């Protein structure tokens, strides 16, 4: 038998039907659902008189619209947002799917809740009407975002019509230097490949620097595979993965755990398997990075200066002119001279316990800069509870941060947490698009440690100088 990649193995284990031209029905093991992209899909089922084929494999949680302030127990004030969440409440009940309502302690960002509850397991296919479904690839699960029509298709048939992607390997060799994190890896990779570099591929991340990451760090890396254009990102499961999964509420137990482990241990790329594209970065070359523009590919080490449009070619020249104007930056300006109004720490990219610990390490016993608006939004109610238990909540509050309840918050500003015009934010989220965090808001993507450093100094800051 010819050697296979990890992606080949998971794909082959899920093809329910294949047509002559390769168009396949891929069976879906887990379907995660949130309120923004699902209402029209459930309505479609209703109109056609269809049921959810596998409600036991379908898990819903509201996250995008959910306010992160304590007054949310009284309900969502924005009428449209309230209706959208209410529609999910109703649909979950009517179609009999698993549900974590807004005020359940297990509620949170769908991509944090899935792994936390043990819904996401190695070797699975996982989809959600959300591009950051790529997160779950950290478990060696084939996980990707789908549109609402496909959400309806999965609800009705538990399958997706798919063409297989090509295989891409991203290897990060060696060790990371101090102050460099999973977020810097994933941004550095996009800086290298561009936001369309992964189009048509599923990426497998590998190498010593990836192996050394915790599950939280691996989720950060895979989360942004979509920002590099890839359909999905994958990391082969290992002891770190099994350790994380074991004992979670929906993880297999007893004899089923043993059977699962037997299969999970075969989930790696075989010696000699072919990749269509290989990108290699040396771990020790990766620096703490920030974005300066309005695309996640606009990445530079924090020690660099703002580039000039002339540094680029083709359509990117005009895009850079537009980005510098939008961001209010001047070519040649040192990145560390850029003053910040706001710091946002959270999102499905960096809203897990390890991210909060990294922030606490930087800010413990210190105060954020006067006048700075700084918020920390845990990825789930359980992340918040754990942070409280570890004393992190107190550290944040004493340093001057707002310590919020779980939700997507300012990552996409579909809720009350938004930037105002020209407000400049160091953000641990995943997209620096125009208007992403609020109309005319200016976003610099960074790691949690770098965001914490910016909160203390009021400028984009090299965290290595603070610790």
């Amino acid at each position, binding site marked *: 038998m010819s050697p296979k990649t990890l992606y080949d193995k998971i794909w082959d284990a899920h093809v*329910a*039907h294949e047509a002559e031209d390769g168009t396949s*029905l891929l*069976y879906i*093991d887990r379907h995660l659902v949130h309120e*923004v*992209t699902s*209402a*029209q899909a459930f*309505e479609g089922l209703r109109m056609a008189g269809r049921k959810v084929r596998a409600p036991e*494999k379908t898990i819903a949680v509201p996250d995008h*619209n959910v306010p992160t302030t304590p007054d949310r127990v009284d309900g969502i004030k*924005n009428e*449209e947002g309230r*209706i*959208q969440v209410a529609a999910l409440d109703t649909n979950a009940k009517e179609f009999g799917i698993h549900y974590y309502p807004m005020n359940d302690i297990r509620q949170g960002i769908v991509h944090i809740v899935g792994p936390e509850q043990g819904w996401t*397991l190695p*070797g*699975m296919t996982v989809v959600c*009407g*959300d*591009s950051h*479904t790529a997160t779950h690839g950290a478990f060696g699960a084939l996980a*990707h*975002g*789908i*549109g*609402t*029509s*496909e959400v*309806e298709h999965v609800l*009705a*048939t*538990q*399958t997706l*019509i798919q063409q297989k992607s090509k295989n891409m390997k991203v290897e990060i060799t060696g060790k990371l230097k101090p102050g460099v994190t999973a977020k810097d890896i994933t941004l550095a990779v996009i800086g290298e490949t561009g936001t369309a570099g992964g*189009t*048509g591929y599923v990426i497998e991340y590998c190498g010593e620097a990836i192996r050394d990451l915790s599950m939280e760090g691996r989720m950060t890396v895979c989360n942004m595979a979509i920002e590099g*254009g890839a359909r999905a990102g994958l990391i082969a499961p290992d002891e770190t993965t099994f350790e994380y999964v074991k004992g979670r509420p929906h993880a*297999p137990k007893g004899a*089923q*755990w043993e*059977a*699962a482990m037997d299969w999970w241990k075969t989930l790696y790329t075989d010696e000699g398997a072919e990749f269509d594209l290989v990108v290699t970065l040396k771990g020790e070359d990766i620096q703490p990075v920030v974005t300066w523009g309005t*695309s996640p590919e606009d990445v530079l080490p924090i020690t660099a200066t703002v580039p000039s449009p002339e540094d680029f070619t*083709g*359509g*990117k020249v*005009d*895009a850079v002119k*537009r980005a510098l104007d939008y961001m209010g930056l001047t070519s040649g300006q040192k990145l560390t001279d850029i003053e910040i109004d706001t710091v946002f720490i959270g999102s499905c990219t960096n809203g897990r316990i390890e991210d909060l610990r990294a922030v606490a390490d930087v800010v413990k016993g210190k105060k954020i800069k006067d006048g700075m608006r700084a918020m920390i939004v845990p990825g789930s109610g359980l992340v918040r509870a754990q942070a409280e238990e570890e004393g992190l909540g107190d550290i944040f509050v004493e340093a001057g941060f707002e310590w919020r309840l779980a939700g997507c918050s300012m990552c*996409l*500003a*579909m809720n009350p947490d938004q930037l105002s015009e020209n407000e400049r934010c160091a953000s641990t989220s995943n*997209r620096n*698009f*125009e*208007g*992403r965090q609020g*109309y005319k808001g200016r976003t610099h993507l960074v790691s949690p440690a770098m965001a914490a450093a910016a909160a203390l100094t009021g400028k984009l800051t090299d965290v290595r100088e603070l610790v």
Partner: protein
Amino acid sequence: MEKFEKLQGIAAPMPLVNIDTDMIIPKVHLKSIKRTGFGKNLFDEMRFNRDGTEIADFVLNKPQYRDADILVAGDNFGCGSSREHAPWAIADFGIKCVVSTSFADIFFNNCFKNGILPIVLPQEQVDILMADAEKGANARMTVDLEAQEITTSDGDVIKFDVDAFKKHCLLEGLDDIGLTMEKAASIDTFEEKAAQSRPWV
């Protein structure tokens, strides 16, 4: 879904690269629980000032492109989120075809579910179509899905590739779910086998 008939119409040029889904339809417009009515918010922040007045130099506000049927766009069109509101807004505005050197994967798939044909072409050919679109409303392009050909206003013919299954569904206006349900027996068989081999799922 509406069938994709042969399309003859005005093409609007949008050469900017990395036009993302937040540009196509900002998140403030994602709160609807309907599939329709998003066209008025297409490219909202590029197209309108905060007071609702039009930004005159945005391409779709120019008189010659207000009724555009086709977009010719820069690289990596539709990158970003999975929101199907993006193709819903494009279709609702009246655009049925987008041409670029590359599309983001999820957006590309979403287009086909909504009667929109996304066409990928090499840079040189996109350049030809971009130049043709720059000529304005008198320069009408023709997109023939059956023949897989675009004809410029000068009569130049550019061939394009499209996945055979997706082409068939667009031409016939087929509902994917109905097609898949015809294969229910295969899904049943798969589920029975998976219940044996991976009972923990």
